[in-house]
C-alpha cells in the first residue's frame, strides 16, 4: 500500500490543525483514563454502580448460554439414566431403607446437641445459607479474579457474605446488584482468607495468586511447616468465613510458604451457596488463634486499601 498522504495534508491549515487537534484529544483521553484510574483505585466502590449496570444488562445472555451449555452437557447422562432405570431404582430403594434408621438416629443426636448447647449457653456456631445461585460468568481476561452470581439483593445477598459450593470455598460477595452479584474469587490477589491445616489446626493465611492458585503463609514464621498434599480449611478466625469450609490442597512448597490449589474451581462450580456472615463467639479464642485474630480483621472490611 502506498504511504497514506495524511501526515501533512498539503497546505490546508485547517487539515493540519485537524490532525494536531486529534493528537491533543487522544492524549487528553489517555490522561482522563489515568484520572479515572486514580479515582477507581482510591475509591473502589465509587464506580460500582456503573459496573452493576453492565453486569445486570448482560446477565440474561450469560444465563441463557450457561443453560444451553448445561443442557448439552447433561444430555448424555440423561439418556444413560433411562437405560438402567430399573436397576438403579431397586438399588436406591435398598439404600433408602438402610439410611432411614441412620436418619432417625442423626435427628435425635442433633436434638441432643441443641439441648447441650442451650445448657452451655452457646450461640449457634454454624453458618446459615442465605440463597443458592449459579456462577454465570467470570472475568476471563483480567488479573482481577471476579465471578458473577445469578442472584442478587432481591434474594437477600449482601456485600461481604461468603460464597461456597459443595466442594469448598469460592470467595466472597464484592458488590450486589438487584439480580446479580459479583464475587471476589479465592484466587484474587486481594482475597485474604484465614485458614488452618485440617490435620492439626496450624493457623495460616491464604492469598490469591491470580493464576488460579493461592499462596499459603503460616502465621508463626520459622521453618516451613507444610507438606505437599496438606488440606486447608477455613479457621473462622476474625469472622466472615465460617470454620471448616474446605479451601485448598497444597501443591508445592515455596521458600516462605506453599502454593495450593483451591477445591472449588470456577469452571466446575455449577451452584454456589451464599452464606450469612459468620460472627465468632464471644468467648476467648483458643491459644494460637489469638495471633491470627488481629491480622484477620482486615478481611472483614470492605475491599480496598
Amino acid at each position, binding site marked *: 500500500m*502506498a504511504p497514506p498522504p495524511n501526515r501533512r495534508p498539503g497546505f490546508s491549515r485547517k487539515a493540519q490543525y485537524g490532525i494536531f487537534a486529534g493528537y491533543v484529544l487522544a492524549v487528553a483521553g489517555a490522561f482522563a483514563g489515568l*484520572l479515572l*484510574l486514580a479515582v477507581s483505585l482510591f475509591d473502589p466502590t465509587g464506580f460500582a454502580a456503573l459496573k452493576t449496570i*453492565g453486569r445486570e444488562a448482560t446477565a440474561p445472555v450469560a444465563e441463557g448460554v450457561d443453560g444451553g451449555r448445561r443442557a448439552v452437557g447433561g444430555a448424555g447422562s440423561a439418556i444413560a439414566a433411562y437405560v438402567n432405570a430399573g436397576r438403579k431404582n431397586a438399588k436406591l430403594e435398598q439404600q433408602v431403607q438402610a439410611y432411614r434408621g441412620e436418619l432417625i438416629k442423626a435427628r435425635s443426636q442433633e436434638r441432643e446437641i441443641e439441648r447441650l448447647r442451650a445448657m452451655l449457653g452457646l450461640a449457634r456456631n454454624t453458618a446459615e445459607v442465605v440463597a443458592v445461585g449459579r456462577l454465570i460468568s467470570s472475568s476471563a481476561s483480567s488479573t482481577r479474579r471476579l465471578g458473577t452470581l445469578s442472584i442478587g439483593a432481591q434474594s437477600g445477598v449482601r456485600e461481604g457474605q461468603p460464597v461456597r459450593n459443595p466442594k469448598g470455598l469460592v470467595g466472597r460477595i464484592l458488590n450486589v446488584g438487584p439480580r446479580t452479584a459479583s464475587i471476589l474469587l479465592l484466587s484474587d490477589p486481594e482475597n485474604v482468607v484465614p485458614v488452618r491445616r485440617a490435620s492439626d489446626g496450624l493457623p495460616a493465611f491464604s492469598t490469591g495468586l491470580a493464576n488460579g492458585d493461592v499462596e499459603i503463609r503460616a502465621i508463626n514464621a520459622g521453618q516451613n511447616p507444610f507438606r505437599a498434599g496438606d488440606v486447608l480449611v477455613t479457621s473462622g478466625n476474625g469472622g466472615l468465613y465460617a470454620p471448616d469450609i474446605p479451601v485448598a490442597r497444597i501443591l508445592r512448597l515455596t521458600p516462605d510458604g506453599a502454593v495450593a490449589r483451591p477445591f472449588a474451581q470456577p469452571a466446575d462450580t455449577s451452584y454456589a451457596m451464599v452464606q450469612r456472615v459468620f460472627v465468632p463467639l464471644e468467648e476467648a479464642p483458643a491459644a494460637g488463634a489469638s495471633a491470627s485474630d488481629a491480622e484477620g480483621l482486615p478481611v472483614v472490611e470492605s475491599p480496598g486499601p
Partner: protein
Amino acid sequence: MSRAPANAYPRSRRRRYKSRLYRRQSPLMAMLVPIASVLIASMITTLPILSSLPLLPPLGLMMLIAWRQIRPGLWPLWVGAPFGLFDDLFSGQPIGSAVFLWSIVVIALSVVNDRTNWRDYWQDWLIAALCLIFAITGGMLFVGLVYEPAGLEPLVPQILLSIFSFPVFARLVSMLDRWRLAA
C-alpha cells in the same frame, strides 16, 4: 447433462430485477459495523467462560487494533478512550485502566502508521503483538498498584493466546470491512 443449472449467473449478478447501476452502500451500516464489532468483542468476557486464570485475550482491543491497521482513518484518534471505558465496564479491571492503555495503543498505532511507509502482514502482526503485550502487562500493573502485583507468570498463556489468535481477528475484521462496504 444438458439441463442448465437453476441460476447460471454468479451470485453477484443475481439481482435481476434491481438496477445494477447507482448502487449505494448504506452509510449507517458502514459506520455502525466497526463500532458494534469492537463493543461486542468487549462484551464476550461476560459470557460464561469460567476460568480460574486470566486466559481470554482482550478481544475488544484486538478488534480495535485490527480496525486501526486496516482502516487507519476510520475513527478519530481519541477513539481509544470511549472504547476503553466501555471495555472497563465488563472486564473487571479498575475503571480507567483500558481508557488509558487503549488511548496509548491507538496513538502508537497512528505514529507507527505515519512513520512506516511500507508495511507487510508480518510487521502488522509484530506491531499488534507489542501493543497486546503492553496492554496486558499494563492492566496487570494497574491492578497491582494497590493490590499485590500478580507477576508476569500468570499472564504468559493469555499473552501467547492473544498474539497467536490476532491473525484470526485481522481476517475477521477484513471480512467485516468487505461486508460493511458492499452495496
